[in-house]
């Protein structure tokens, strides 16, 4: 490991730290996560504060970039991969779909954007309607982001545009749904 900023802190590697963040975001209890790593909260809280400080210190952005990669790789973490919060059967099915079906992923991204625009907690909305928690959603989002980046790098703008348009359509669709649920938009009575 050439970059000293990537050395573990109190034995907590960047992969451990990113995996803890992902698991906590996915609703796994902190005690369970820390026990699996063999540490206590005193150790974790120091490691966490110092990992953030390392990201701030790092002018190359390597720590932050690596953190993102590790976050998307949580399913391969040797100690934490099997720790999961209770997920419904529908949730599991939707989660599988989210990983494999780009259209479904873009739809939920669009829905979440629309939800926030209508004052809804998008993370809670996704949990309530699709049984997918925020942490799991973010992990899959990182994986799709890598694919999107490879499309941009490979000049595959047709695909980028195709999915971007699809997401825009979904934002409109969900916006109409949320608007009607709140009794309409502020200018509905003003017609051209």
């Amino acid at each position, binding site marked *: 490991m050439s970059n000293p900023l990537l050395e573990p802190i109190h034995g907590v590697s960047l992969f451990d730290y990113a995996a803890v963040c992902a698991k906590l975001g996915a609703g796994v209890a902190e005690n369970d996560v820390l026990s699996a790593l063999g540490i*206590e*909260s*005193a150790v974790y*809280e*120091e490691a*966490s*504060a*110092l990992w953030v*400080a390392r990201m*701030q*210190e*790092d*002018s190359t952005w390597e720590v932050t970039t690596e953190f993102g990669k590790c976050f998307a790789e949580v399913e391969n973490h040797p100690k934490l991969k099997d720790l999961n919060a209770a997920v419904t059967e529908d949730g599991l099915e939707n989660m599988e779909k989210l990983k494999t079906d780009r259209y479904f992923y873009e739809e939920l991204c669009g829905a979440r954007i629309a939800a*926030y*625009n*209508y*004052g*809804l*907690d998008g993370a809670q909305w996704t949990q309530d309607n699709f049984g997918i928690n925020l942490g799991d959603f973010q992990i899959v989002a990182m994986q799709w982001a890598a694919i999107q980046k490879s499309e941009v790098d490979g000049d595959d703008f047709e695909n980028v545009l195709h999915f971007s348009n699809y997401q825009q359509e979904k934002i409109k669709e969900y*916006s109409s749904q949320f*608007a009607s649920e709140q009794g309409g*938009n*502020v*200018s509905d009575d*003003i*017609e*051209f």
Partner: protein
Amino acid sequence: MFNLSKNVEIEKVIDEVHTTKDRFFVFLQKLEIRLKEFAEEALPELTDLNKNDPDGNKLGFYRMKSSVEGQLDSIVQKARDVFEEKKNYFEGKIEHEHRSLYYDFRNQCLDGLQKLEITRNYYKNQIEGTDSQDYEMVYQAILEEYDSIKNNFNCVQCSSPILIDKIYFTTTYLSCAACFTQNTFEPSSQTKQLEHVGRSLAEQRTAHLLQEYKEQSKLASVIFSKKHELEMSLAGENLKDVIVQKTKIIQELTAQNEAVEKELPILYERYLRTLFDHWNAINPTMKNEHEKFYTRLLKENYYI
């Protein structure tokens, strides 16, 4: 006959363009009035909720703010949708030789639309302004809490007093002086925020210094633009007197620019150093880490 019917046709289109444009501007005006009324009503409500949100993280406030902004956007979107529809309609309808009719329609409507967007942006800024947090108060609460609890703990093993000797913002081990047992001290949720509160408070306290730096920076670019403009104008200048006069002004501007540019790093360093001094004073246990961050920012010369 053919030309006559074509002329009648064109007259009809011209008429339709003007009517549509007039209607569009009336439509925009109604939307703008509604936007203003709605935003003006929302602002005091948001200010109130920012102060009195029952949620500790002000999530209720952020959701309401987001929905108010969403409504402002929905107004602009409504105007934009109509604009796109009419623009496409005339784009297909107006033939090549009367294209300026289409361009005028499009540009004038677009100007109107942009005016609505400016009003929307103005209110979005106002709405952003309702998101205020007095970090001085949050920090005071942490200090007061520390004072009130520092002597309240006893070793879980032998009951001897354990002094909380400083503000800890992460869970830590404190040893009992009597029985040497390692006790685990977990700070309150608000004290765990000390590092973040410290940075935000330091930023609040040094906002005036950042402003000074930004203004100087802006001044530098204004002087530079003036100088550049004059230099460009020299290229086509033939009158000797004018050339002499402009050259003199360029020299003056160059000198001014150099003086302002020289001040910039000094102002930036003063801002950054003061900010980090505040942050260090608030959370001294992270001083080493703060200093590494400071070194990076000073080297990269951008503000946090």
